[in-house]
């Protein structure tokens, strides 16, 4: 009895008086939710099954719920392809550049913006400066022409610099910084620490949850970005998602050698694509547990704040 009570989720036991109708509802609800969850996962599971099944099984449409005639051929083929590794390299490079630059720049900016208007009078100006970019933007063509005009085209910086400052993520940092107790800051000030030291020795260490949230969001955004790679980079410098796009939509034939084409003809297109999609999603799968730990607080803060 005591144990059951502890399992009630905060609404008090008076809510748990169960009529038969309530019991039926409970069961139906649980089944419905589980179906919902499976609908969200099944498409991914299906691709995993396809990627691990043999050509014959895929061609005969025998693969629905589990891999049939287990085979790693598709993965072997993909992992031997140089363009695949190259594109993976570009994605890793962009993540390694964007993540630290972006975090430092945004922390530096969020700190002054978290100050009181009375302490930092120019704050109002800066706030409007950033806020206006949330209301109005130049759009696709002027941005493209600017990046081209700056000579960034076909360099990794075309993928890094335009996305470095994300106002939404900056807002997350800002709201967190604002809640740092004044006492801590005053103590640092009395010890003679300037603004930079206060930020990096007081604010940053106690803001780990929000830093993790923003870092993970940045990571996922950069991993998943494809459009900038497509318009700014030449095909031999495509980042992974852009490269995957060419594979998924079959634009890749020109880059194949004759030998590769012969081998490709023997492979099932479907399982090849599936294998690459699976590989493309693996990093997300790996960070997902950490993501889940943090994004709930992030999104709750974020959707009420922009």
């Amino acid at each position, binding site marked *: 009895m005591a144990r059951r009570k502890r*399992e009630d989720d*905060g609404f*008090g036991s*008076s*809510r748990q*008086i169960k009529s038969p109708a*309530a019991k039926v*509802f409970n069961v139906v609800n*649980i089944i*419905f*939710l*589980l179906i*919902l*969850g499976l609908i*969200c996962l099944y498409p*991914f599971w*299906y*691709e995993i099954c*396809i990627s691990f099944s043999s050509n014959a099984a895929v061609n005969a*449409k025998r693969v629905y719920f589990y891999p049939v005639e287990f085979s790693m051929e598709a993965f072997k083929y993909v992992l031997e392809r140089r363009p695949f590794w190259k594109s993976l390299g570009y994605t890793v490079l962009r993540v390694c550049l964007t993540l630290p630059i972006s975090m430092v*720049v945004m922390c*530096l*900016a969020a700190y002054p*913006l978290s100050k009181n208007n009375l*302490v930092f*009078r*120019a704050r109002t100006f*800066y*706030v409007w*400066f950033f806020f206006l*970019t*949330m*209301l*109005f*933007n*130049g759009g*696709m*063509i*002027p*941005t493209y*022409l*600017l990046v*081209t005009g700056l000579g960034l085209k076909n360099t990794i910086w075309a993928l890094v*610099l335009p996305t*470095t*400052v994300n*106002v939404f993520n900056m807002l997350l940092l800002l709201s967190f910084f604002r809640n740092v107790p004044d006492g801590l800051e005053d103590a640092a000030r009395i010890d003679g620490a300037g*603004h930079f030291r206060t930020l990096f020795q007081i604010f940053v260490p106690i803001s780990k949850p929000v830093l993790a949230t923003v870092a993970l969001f940045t990571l996922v955004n950069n*991993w*998943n970005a494809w*459009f900038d790679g497509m*318009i700014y980079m030449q095909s031999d410098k495509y980042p992974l998602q852009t490269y995957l796009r060419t594979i998924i939509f079959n634009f890749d034939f020109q880059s194949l050698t004759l030998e590769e084409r012969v081998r490709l003809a023997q492979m099932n297109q479907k399982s090849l694509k599936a294998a690459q999609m699976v590989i*493309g*999603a693996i990093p997300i799968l790996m960070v997902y547990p950490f*993501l889940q730990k943090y*994004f709930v607080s992030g*999104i*709750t803060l974020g959707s*009420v704040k*922009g």
Partner: protein
Amino acid sequence: MKKSSKKNGLKQFKRNLPLHIMLLPAVALVLIFAYIPMYGLVIAFQNFNAAKGIFSNQKWIGFGNFTYIFTLPSIWNVFRNTLIIAVLKIIFGTLAAIATALLLNECSVKTVKKSVQTMVYFPHFISWIILAGVFTDILSPTDGVVNSFLGLFGVKPIYFLGDNRYFRGTLVITDIWKSFGYSSIVYLATITGIDPSLYEAAAIDGAGRWKQMWHITLPGMSTIIILLTILSMGNVLNAGFDQVFNLYSAAVYDTGDIIDTMVYRLGLQGAKFGPSTAVGLLKSIISLILISSAYLIAWKKFDYKVF
């Protein structure tokens, strides 16, 4: 008097100099990559020559580009598609998220609740590139899982991604599939924040679960629902470029071509920079009006502040 206040201002600037320096990198990047493109919208009024670049003298042609884009037969269709797709996504996406939050909240088995949450949040984090690959597979009319399933009930194969009758619906449903779980997070958090004593009082008054949901949970969520719906007004011209671009084909331009995809084809594929920027400018201006009014209403009525 005036002089001393000026001196004061200078003194304050000096004292706050480190704060200004801290803002400098972000301000510089935003200035370059957000404000210069805003200025770049003047291309809409130019006969733009790409060889000369964005910073040089171009030939001004007034509203020539605008008259040109309105002679395009597809332009009204594109605006209509954008509106329809975006509004359907907002309405049904919101409803699905609220319903999911309510059902998750009613779920009494914690492990089920947790694992379902893990499952439904996941698709949000996968790119539309991979999802486009997944959906072309499972929605395929020849060997797609969905059509095989429908076939069990005698339904003839449907070409979801290539048939104008189904394309918009497919866009809306796949988008909701990707985002309903993630969008439900904020509603679920709101429900958790409702004062438990309200439920206890209601239970003592004999209100069952259904009545509690109707009279306590939903009213408790109403503010956030209204607020988020108002804010989503700013998105009615964003029908989802990433999704549409990776799922559409020439066969479904009639129902699926949206402003952003049109700007891409016109400008970056067709190199018609002037006209495509004109379309973009129209979108930016309408969005500006919508987003500003959304924020203004949210601020006046709900004391909502972005910064």
